[in-house]
């Protein structure tokens, strides 16, 4: 079973995605902030990470920066799923290894799954 880590602080949305992904057959882990996310990632080594940008304490970019020095998790494919549509942030994310940057509200959960399938080998 493939593992997915969702990093999202809005509970309503986190739940929604967790429901959809679990239904699809993924094992889902959820974190609401960067520190927790890093711990969970190292512990469970997911096959994909769904990352929000606007998080409490640190932004999602910090997650991308911090995981660079962590051998175990630095190469896990990351899809940024955020409502923050900012050109600079997009560039930074891609520069730090994100595979995709999706605006949450433009996608149905089904569409997100399609994009995920492209990244999980």
């Amino acid at each position, binding site marked *: 079973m493939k593992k997915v880590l969702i990093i999202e602080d809005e509970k*309503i*949305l986190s739940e929604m*995605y967790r429901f*959809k992904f679990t*239904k699809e057959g993924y094992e889902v882990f959820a974190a609401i902030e960067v520190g927790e996310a890093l711990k969970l990632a190292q512990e469970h080594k997911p096959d994909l990470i769904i990352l929000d940008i606007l998080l409490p304490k640190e932004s999602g970019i910090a997650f991308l920066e911090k995981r660079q020095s962590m051998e175990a998790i630095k190469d896990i494919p990351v899809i940024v799923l955020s*409502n923050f549509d900012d*050109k600079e942030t997009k560039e930074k994310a891609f520069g730090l290894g994100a595979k995709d940057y999706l605006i949450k*509200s433009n996608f*149905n*959960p089904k569409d997100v799954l399609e994009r995920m399938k492209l990244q999980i080998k």
Partner: protein
Amino acid sequence: MNFYAIAALINMITSLLLGLFVFFKNKKSPINNTFVLLSLAVFVWSIFYLLWQISTDRASALLYTRLLSIGSTFIPIFYLHWVLSFLEIKDKKSKAVLFFGYLVTFLFLTMSFSPLFIRGVEKILVFDFWPKAGPLYTLYLLISYAGLVGYGLYVLAKNYLTNTGLKRYQIRYIIFGTIIGFFGGATNFFLWYNIKILPVGNVVVSLYVFILFYAMIKYRLMDIRIIARKVFIYFGIAALTYGMFYGLIWLYYTAFGGLFTTPAYLLGVIIAPLFVALFYTADNWLKDFANKYLFVSLYNYQETINKLIDGLVSYIDLDKIINLIVGTIKKTMQLDRVDVFLADANGDYQIFKIDIQDISASIKNRFLVKFFLKNQKPLVREELPILSENSTNEKEKKDFAKLSDYMAKIKAAVCLPLIANKKLIGIIVLGSKISRDPYTNEDLNLLNVLSKQAGVAIENALQYKQIQEFGETLQEKVYEQTKDIRKKNTYLLKAAQEEGARKEEAERISKSKTEFISIVSHQLRTPLTAIRGYTSMLKDGDFGGLSEEADNAINYIHESSVGMIKLVNSLLAVSRLEKGQIELKIQDISIEDLLKECVRDIKLVADDKGLYIKYNKPDKPIPLISGDPDKLKQAIGNIINNAIHYTVEGGVEITLSEKDANTFCIQIKDTGIGIDKEDAQKIFKSFSRGKSGTEMYTQGTGLGLYVAKNFIEMHNGKLLVESEGRNKGSVFTIELPIKSNIETKHDFVLTGD
């Protein structure tokens, strides 16, 4: 040969030599001639004195005494005559005295061999044969010696008081010499009267002759004080040596028993070098002692001038230097005036500071200038006659004479040249000493060194001044020239500041607007995501099957949420447009493929509404164009969307064609509600929808066409609209260039409504 014989010998030689020297120097001058006579008299007296001292028998002794008296008889009158000549006294009184003097002398001359004059010779003290004075002798002494010499001294004293400068000094020497000479010589007379005092003064007679000679010959005399100081030190050392010598001898005898014993030799080895060291110390100590207690004024004065000379190098300010020179010289040398003249542009010399009011303020004498350039040393007015005498050129003699008059006129006793770089940059003019003494040799040596140093120092100061002035002038000019620039600068600066302030304000406003929109959009997007997400999942049956009614309801909710999401997206896009943030990502695009995609996207909605979408291919394939596919798709998509949404029946026809070599057209024709003529231009403005639009399509944000027009224009294209009017449909035409330079970065200013 006794002491007295030797003294006589010295006298003889000195007077002979001096007399001959003066005789051959200048036979015409009465001063010289009378001096020669005086020397002759002294010579005659000394030669017979010598002979007398070495005579062994009474008869020759007596003879020689008588002969020497002849010589000595003439000494007073010749002396007086010389004094009067030297002082250039030609008045009747003096002539009378001279005449009387000669008369008396000749009278006594005839008496020389008379026993009334000289009685005979007798043994007295160490002398075998000493003459005894007769009554006439006493008379002779009174009239000749006391009288004539006394008168001479009196005349000298009178003239000393009235004379200045060189003459005065010469007189001083002569008086001094006279006193030495005659008192020295007078020591001879004691024994004539059985007064038992030896004629030790004899030896100074030659000295007296020499002093007179020196005073007469030299035009620049040594300072007597300096000679006295030297003599003092010399005799001081001599006394020390004498003392040491006898002290040692006494030591040797008492300690070692003799001079030539071994311990004496050994001690000598130590003492000799010690003595030499002591000698030098003693020399210095005596000098200091002399300077401190005996010749204080002389010492101070020399020290001060030396200090001035050394100090000149450390100053660079012209005023300071000149004031220092003038002040120091005037004070130490006690002069009545000191002035500095500096060269001006015409080659004349202008006074630097006025010292005396009635003195000319400039020196224009060319001869003086020439003289200084040739001889770079001080010029003493009193010496001009001598310089004139030495010259062979008639014109030069005249020039010297004129110069002497000129210097007298400007009350200049001495002129010092200030030379620098082989040019005469100035002249220092010194007046007479207040004491009316002349400038001594030492004075003039000091002044010479001073004027050389001063020349250099003043030249430096002048150059420094020039540089300073140049610098100031330059600064002024630059300041003036840049006044304009500075004015413009301040103006520009101010303008820039104002502009900056305005920009900052505008940016602040813009930023807060954008931030507001961004924050709001984000906050709106989150719940919208949830609504959209869940409704889509419900629609997909993720929560179980739905009744048909439920399914409908869910659909509406979903569509509404999607609409809202689109609105939020548009708002954001506009905010970015307003801020001018749009950046085009240029690629090669196939317009045909793009259009096909747009048609595909809208087909569902069109089918739902029962409208047709027709796509007309171009005749020839349109080449790839450069553009941002996303933005173009959005633009075209927005227009097609509009077309569909504002049409109730019929459909939308899209035609792609080539307009000309460099332009292609996309025509989007609909059969919809059309546009009122008055709304035609308004629809492209943000938030403007046109009347018909407002009535019909409540979800149109009014932004679509605004965005579309801007994106198209970013691609250097045009968006046009035509409509017959209400319900007559509309035709939107997009024109785009095939080849164009597309600016990737775009700033926007929202055109007001």
